């Protein structure tokens, strides 16, 4: 069975094609204001990459904040259900899935059967979100892909007193003006993100195994920081972590 899962997030749009449980192809693009018109071409490009004609797709599921833009979708599924299904499918031992999205932080507590037992979502405040990290990295002229390497050079991470993204940005700028090392500033930013994430996740009590989804999951020092604060073991998502929502949608499409 060939399925497509497409997750339109606030910052990035992700789509995957799956053949039963196997990931055949994926695509990631920046979400634009014009995505409604572009989404069809994007999905065709995905088919091309996979070498599978779109007519052969049995089911297409849409998810994410912009799910309704996918007119060709057979159904829409809630992002939390999609994240949970992807996590439960690959990582049955994981009890807590945290997703750092472009404009949200979501903690999902999973039952032993892999069902959503409880969840908490902050999409009201940018603090700690992907957008937050992106803003601070932009001010420091850093790409997210550079962070792993740069943070390892930090010897004394700065302390940010602000949680609000707007105020934290001013703080970052004043550290730059004071001549502080970029590595120490970005390490301080990541520590703030970790604090925000853990503050939310901790409300579910202690867990043994957790995973992180969303592009931010590729930043190892951040993952380590959260693991330490949660006193839980991190199990990495087996595919690109930014694809978790789309993969979950594709898996759910397969079970329809």
């Amino acid at each position: 069975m060939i399925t497509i899962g497409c997750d339109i997030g606030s910052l990035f749009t992700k789509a995957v094609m799956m053949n039963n449980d196997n990931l055949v192809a994926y695509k990631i693009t920046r979400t634009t204001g014009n995505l409604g018109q572009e989404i069809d071409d994007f999905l065709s490009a995905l088919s091309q990459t996979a070498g599978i004609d779109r007519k052969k797709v049995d089911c297409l599921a849409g998810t994410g904040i912009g799910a309704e833009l996918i007119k060709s979708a057979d159904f829409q599924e809630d992002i939390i259900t999609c994240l949970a299904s992807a996590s439960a499918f690959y990582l049955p031992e994981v009890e807590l899935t945290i997703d750092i999205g472009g404009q949200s932080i979501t903690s999902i507590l999973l039952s032993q059967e892999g069902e959503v037992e409880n969840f908490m979502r902050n999409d009201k405040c940018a603090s700690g979100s992907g957008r937050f990290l992106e803003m601070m990295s932009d001010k420091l002229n850093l790409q997210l892909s550079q962070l792993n390497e740069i943070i390892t050079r930090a010897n004394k991470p700065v302390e940010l007193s602000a949680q609000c993204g707007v105020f934290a940005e001013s703080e970052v700028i004043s550290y730059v003006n004071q001549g502080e090392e970029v590595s120490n500033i970005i390490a301080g930013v990541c520590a703030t993100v970790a604090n925000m994430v853990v503050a939310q996740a901790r409300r579910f009590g202690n867990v043994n195994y957790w995973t992180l989804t969303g592009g931010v999951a590729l930043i190892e020092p951040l993952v380590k920081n959260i693991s330490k604060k949660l006193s839980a073991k991190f199990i990495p998502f087996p595919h690109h972590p930014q694809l978790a929502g789309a993969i979950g949608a594709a898996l759910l499409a397969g079970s329809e």
Partner: protein
Amino acid sequence: MYFAGVDIGSLTAEAVIINDGKIIGSEIISVLPNPLDSAREVMNRALKKCGLNFPEIRFIVSTGYGREKLQAEGMAQENKSEISCHGLGAFTLNPEVRTVIDIGGQDAKVIKVDGSGKLENFVMNDKCAAGTGHFLEVMSRSLGLSLDELGQISLDSKKPVEMSNRCTIYVETEVIHFLQRGTAKKDVAAGINKAMAERVVALARRVNPEKEIMLTGGVAKNVAVRSEIQKILKVKLVSPSIDPQLIGAYGAALFAQAKGTEK
């Protein structure tokens, strides 16, 4: 005898010089990187306006960011919190005032005073940029308007947009999307001012605002925010007889007068 108050904010610095309770000189400048430099500059300019020299000022009270430092460096003889200064300044201008809403560049405060002008209670938001001057600054930049224009232009709006977010960062994205979709600037501006007023009122409601209510700080000059606050609270705000941005420094000058004459 001359007294002065100097108020250093996150974005602007103000100085007020009084003689017998009356303002004889005042100045507002954009802040310099160092509060002490800001204080010197704004004081010198205010002094120049009324033709006085520094030594002629009998007592100076500092308030705002770095107020302790200004006192330690000898720029002021005493320092007072912005909350006390805005409370006293507003109450002195209008003794009917019981609630002062001060919206600064990076924070917002709601101050309650009793019938004798004494501080009763206050709430403050300095954690979240929504509902502070910074919010309007970010939005005016996105719209390519000055802060004054942001207020003016929205008065012509018949259909203010509804913001679905509160967070400054998310509202900024929303604003950009509205503009991309071709929504008129005035309608977006009106939606921004309305969102701003809603945050301020939410803060004010935590201390049960009582009449009369005065709006102080730079944002008080935004006509649209002012009128939205009136609409939501269903009260008429009292207008200060001086520039609302000067009220903190004026309150500091009044404290200086009280201190300086008691000695």
